């Protein structure tokens, strides 16, 4: 078991190493692992990630990302693939294509059935359901008005005794279940990721008003004409009952998207420098390229997070969006800093210049060159206020060298 874990750690780290170096890198680490005492093997294997990161950071950029057009094409392909996958996988598809709630949809919890019937709301735009009444496997089934999901704008498959389930595989629609000795047919499966009805029920059996009359209290759903915080019911005896109205909140994609951008943008300065270096003159194409990369990274992260959620069926999509946006934005900035501002190709041939012992008094860092002969980029090993990365433009007199 432990040996498998250690090999899995090494294989995981190997994914960070470039494909052409991966086999030899893994062979070396596996050979070295053989000599390590069992107690120290986990710490030893975790060190492999640092080694793999070092190789990744200090190696040349992948060939397919060197040209700006190739880079954008790769990003566009990734964005299209992750979006296509999100619309194919059942859970993410359900989230993306969930019907929109009608405007002004409110819920009222703990309302007696008698009071619900006296509400001054159009009966076709309001519905009632009770607390869970039956148990069917893991389902807590409540009785509900026939029009509950018409009010919520959820389309139902035709069924004689329709049952709606809060979450699950959409392929279950049409299957039969026995609820309290009666056969019910699954007419819809909601996406709990979009909105949730109040109460502990996670399945609703749609029944007629006569059957529903057995309920004494429950929950009401209504489309209100205007936003309201409470509704009043006047009794014949002169007393007034007031019930608080709560809007049925939708967790829409737009909110998740804006949150992803906001949190990612806030965290970004902590993980990389926001500066793109000193570049004399304006290079409009450079900014357009930067904007295009951001524009492609956003859908990759958004749909990629939904794909992940759909594949592992665990609600980690919000976490994945935030972590993904930070990693994606960081890559965009680092990639931009390592490109020629004229032709936008990735700079190559990194060369260490100077010595670490002279960091404070002289220049020490890495020099990269544009293969088209546009210039040199000086990247200091230690960035500070007086030592930012600089671009040295080469004029046409250098063209003979390239």
């Amino acid at each position, binding site marked *: 078991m432990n040996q498998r874990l250690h090999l899995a750690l090494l294989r995981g780290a190997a994914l960070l190493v470039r494909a052409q170096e991966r086999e030899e890198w893994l062979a070396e680490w596996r050979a*070295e692992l053989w000599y*390590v005492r069992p107690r120290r093997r986990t710490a030893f*294997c*975790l060190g492999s990630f*640092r080694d793999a990161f070092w190789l990744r950071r200090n190696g040349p950029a992948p060939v397919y990302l060197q040209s700006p057009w190739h880079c954008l094409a790769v990003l566009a392909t990734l964005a299209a693939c992750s979006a296509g996958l999100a619309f194919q996988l059942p859970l993410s598809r359900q989230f993306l294509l969930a019907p929109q709630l009608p405007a002004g949809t409110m819920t009222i919890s703990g309302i007696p059935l008698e009071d619900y019937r006296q509400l001054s709301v159009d009966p076709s735009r309001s519905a009632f359901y009770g607390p869970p009444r039956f148990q069917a496997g893991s389902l807590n089934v409540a009785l509900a008005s026939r029009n509950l999901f018409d009010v919520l704008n959820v389309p139902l498959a035709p069924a004689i005794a329709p049952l709606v389930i809060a979450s699950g595989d959409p392929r279950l629609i049409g299957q039969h279940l026995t609820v309290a000795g009666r056969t019910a047919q699954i007419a819809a499966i909601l996406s709990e990721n979009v909105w949730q009805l109040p109460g502990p029920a996670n399945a609703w059996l749609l029944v007629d008003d006569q059957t529903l009359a057995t309920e004494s209290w429950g929950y009401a759903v209504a489309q209100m004409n205007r936003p309201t915080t409470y509704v009043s019911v006047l009794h014949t005896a002169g007393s007034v009952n007031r019930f608080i109205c709560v809007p049925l909140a939708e967790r829409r994609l737009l909110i998740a998207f804006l949150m992803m951008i906001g949190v990612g943008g806030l965290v970004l300065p902590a993980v990389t420098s926001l500066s793109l270096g000193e570049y004399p003159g304006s290079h409009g194409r450079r900014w357009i390229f930067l904007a295009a990369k951001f524009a492609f990274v956003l859908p990759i992260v958004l749909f990629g997070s939904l794909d992940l959620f759909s594949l592992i069926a665990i609600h980690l999509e919000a976490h994945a969006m935030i972590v993904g946006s930070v990693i994606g934005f960081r890559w965009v900035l680092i990639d931009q800093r390592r490109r020629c501002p004229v032709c936008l190709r990735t700079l190559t041939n990194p060369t260490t210049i100077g010595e670490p*012992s002279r960091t404070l008094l002289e220049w020490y860092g890495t020099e990269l060159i544009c293969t088209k002969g546009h210039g040199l980029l000086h990247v200091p090993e230690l960035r500070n206020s007086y030592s930012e990365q600089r671009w040295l433009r080469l004029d046409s007199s250098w063209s003979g060298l390239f």
Partner: protein
Amino acid sequence: MAAETKLSHTAAMILQAIHAGHGYGFSVMEMTGLPSGTVYPAMRRLERDELIRSQWEKPSIAEAELRPPRKYYKLTRAGKATLDASQKRYPLIAKLIPAAEEVEQA
């Protein structure tokens, strides 16, 4: 790479360990007490700067000893010159990690 290249103390220790005959990564770790996450990236850096070079041992040797083949590291000429300069800067390194022949003489 200039012969006078100055190394950090850690890099000089690793170079000294390789010079002393600890030719593969785990042996360097054992000798210096440094973790794997420090030793291997440092050795990659030394190899990139052409101070050391690596070579896989012949599989037949490893098979005869019933173990996986090792990747051995050796100092280059530039590495030896750099180590000599580092020993002047960090004189204790040579005493901490003596070369095999020096141990025999002692």
